[in-house]
């Protein structure tokens, strides 16, 4: 607290009385309108406190005279967004997946919706973008266990595979090893033969020759004479470069001995038809749709 009010010689105005390294400050009075504007902001804030949610109580909070709640604002904005979406959603609902593919605007909307739904529902198993992971099929490639047409994809999504839904897809590959249908050496022979179907060099060509007969007897009924697979039965193609459970000899032997068979939930009970249509279109356009 300065005891002496000093006057600056140059301007004749008072200083604050303090000095920092030889620098002193003038103490000019602020204009009164500045003070009134400050009072105005205080008054404004009081009005604000009354009109809008402001003070917490012990078991709640003062909701403001206007009763505005951010949750309600969010709800109304969501409703607005959905109303804006409605024209596109209705158009997608009215069209079949095949028609959606033809119409660019609908396609853009459906792909966006499908991408969002896919990330929430399908990506945990099938990976984002349908990239797949160990033992979950890659949806972005052109190899389909149960068929890659729009109808086939839709059915798979809606009813799933090997679940409790009455319309779920179902098939079962016998456990040739575990149920002792084939002996260990026979399985190895067949595995070698299977490798030749995709044009690879089997480790044991002699075994592969022996395995051909076993394949024709045991496997060709489902997997096809040339290993082309049968999508009605969910029997994978054995003559391509895509192996869900591994393409090395030990892995093929293991799969023949005790086959792993994937299960997929039915989505029809959980997602509405429009969403499943959008997912169908999305999966189909990941590059491998038929």
């Amino acid at each position, binding site marked *: 607290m300065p005891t002496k009010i000093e006057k600056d010689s140059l301007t004749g105005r008072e200083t604050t009385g303090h000095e920092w390294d030889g620098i002193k400050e003038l103490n000019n009075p602020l204009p009164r*309108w500045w003070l009134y504007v400050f009072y105005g902001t205080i008054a404004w804030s009081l009005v604000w406190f009354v009109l809008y949610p402001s003070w917490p109580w012990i078991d709640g909070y003062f909701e403001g005279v206007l009763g505005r709640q951010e949750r309600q604002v969010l709800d109304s904005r969501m409703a607005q967004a959905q109303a804006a979406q409605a024209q596109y959603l209705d158009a997608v609902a009215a069209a079949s997946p095949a028609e959606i593919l033809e119409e660019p605007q609908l396609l853009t909307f459906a792909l966006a919706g499908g991408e969002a739904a896919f990330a929430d529902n399908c990506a945990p198993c099938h990976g*984002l973008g349908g*990239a797949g992971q160990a033992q979950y099929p890659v949806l972005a490639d052109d190899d389909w266990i149960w068929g890659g047409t729009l109808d086939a994809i839709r059915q798979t999504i809606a009813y799933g595979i090997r679940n409790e839904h009455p319309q779920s897809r179902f098939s079962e590959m016998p456990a040739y090893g575990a149920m002792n249908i084939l002996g260990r050496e026979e399985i190895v022979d067949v595995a070698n033969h299977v490798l030749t179907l995709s044009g690879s060099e089997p480790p044991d060509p002699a075994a592969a020759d022996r395995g051909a007969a076993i394949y024709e007897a045991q496997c060709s009924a489902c997997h096809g004479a040339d290993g082309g697979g049968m999508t009605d039965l969910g029997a994978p193609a054995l003559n391509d470069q895509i192996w869900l459970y591994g393409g090395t000899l030990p892995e093929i032997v293991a799969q023949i001995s005790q086959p792993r068979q994937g299960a997929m939930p039915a989505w029809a009970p959980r997602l509405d038809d429009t969403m499943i249509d959008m997912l169908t279109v999305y999966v189909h356009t990941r590059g491998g749709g038929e």
Partner: protein
Amino acid sequence: MPDSNLERTVQSTQVETEDVLSRSEQKTHSLFAGRVKVYPQKIKGTVRRWKWATLVVLLAIYYLAPWIRWDRGPDAPDQAILVDIPGRRLYFFFIEIWPQEVYFLTALLVLAALGLFLVTALFGRVWCGFTCPQTVWTDLFMWVERLIEGDRNQRMKLDRAPLSLEKVAKKGAKHAVWLVIALLTGGAWIMYFQDAPRFVVAFFTGQSGAGAYFFVGLFTATTYLLAGWAREQVCTYMCPWPRFQAALLDEDSLVVTYEGWRGEPRGKLKKNPDWSARGDCIECKKCVAVCPTGIDIRDGIQLECIGCGLCIDACNSVMEKIGRPRNLITWDSENNQKARAEGRPTRLRLLRARSLAYVAVLLVIVGITGVGLAGRSSLDVNVTHDRNPLFVTLSDGAIRNGYEVRILNKTREDRDYALTVEGLQDARFMAIGVTDDFVDQLVLAAPADGVAAYQVYVTVPRDRVTQQQTDVRFVIEDLASGETDGQNEVFRGP
């Protein structure tokens, strides 16, 4: 008769004087002070003429520029200067800026700042005194006030007078004219953002959007308040510019200067003055009377002096009357003033390190911006590799990568573009919505003045993929004009 023994006793006792000031001895230093109203007087002169000319030119540009037309084709706005926020474009005659090119606007602002620094370093606070919008509109409003209420003395008398029909009429008329000017100002501002003819019609028929009415109202209110009521309070208390002027001026900058070595010692004019024994300043206070911020330039350069130079005209008019040399107050530099006081020759040092440095930086940025604008293409491509999956193995073992390709068509016609990828052998392409099969070359369309996004798949036979990551380049070519643009990306494999 004083008791000398007692006196001696008192005087010999040591009593210290306390270092304290009583409350009544302390000058009242109230924290707040009421505003002292400034009544600038009318003055004629060279500086005043320059100020009027600047005001007319600047206001003409501000009010008339939105009305200039520029034909860009049937679907495009035909206003020369337009900030089209819904359409995400900025138009300036033949220049058209997309949102991602907002850095041109940044460059413009940087150039404006550098230009201001240069002009201030050379000529002092000419921005504040001649071209600042606050000064221009306050000057205009003061002119209206002078027209309706009269010059300084008449205005002061009117303010002191009790309420009467004449007072109400004059004040009412003044505020009405002010509000009309403010409304035109607010409206003109909006016309930079909306097509001017259409906006004017819509505004007065009640069809403009709520936003337009709000902003016109806001700018009307702020113009009216700042130019009508706040005036010099803006310069003194609200604007940051005066407070760093000190950093922009040096001893060679031309500033409004009172030649104290000539004017002092000042004194009232008496009969037959001996000019060798007294200064030229006759304490007429005309310089204070005409000052729009109400300061005394004889105190020197100060924060409140906006460098308008009206005091120069005022003093010169008086100097002429009393037959003394002009320019007792003048535009001059500190160095020159010292030289004049000592009788040495003076120099106008415009080319000095500071100004040359500003000019150099200015030229560099003008150059960069110019090159940037001139080299602006009408075509741009952005390619983003899919995050998931990184790559896909197809049935025949081929490796496929997915990309989102965005084509920015900045021309005003629908165009087709050929897409090729350099750096891959035997690559084939597919795009959703364009083709279902893999083809050797894709042709993608983009709408006029728009963006088209495509999901593109690139497939390469397994034996042609030799690395985990191959550098490639996507190139699109405008089939109509041959213009190309490209972007580097990668192709991933196992």
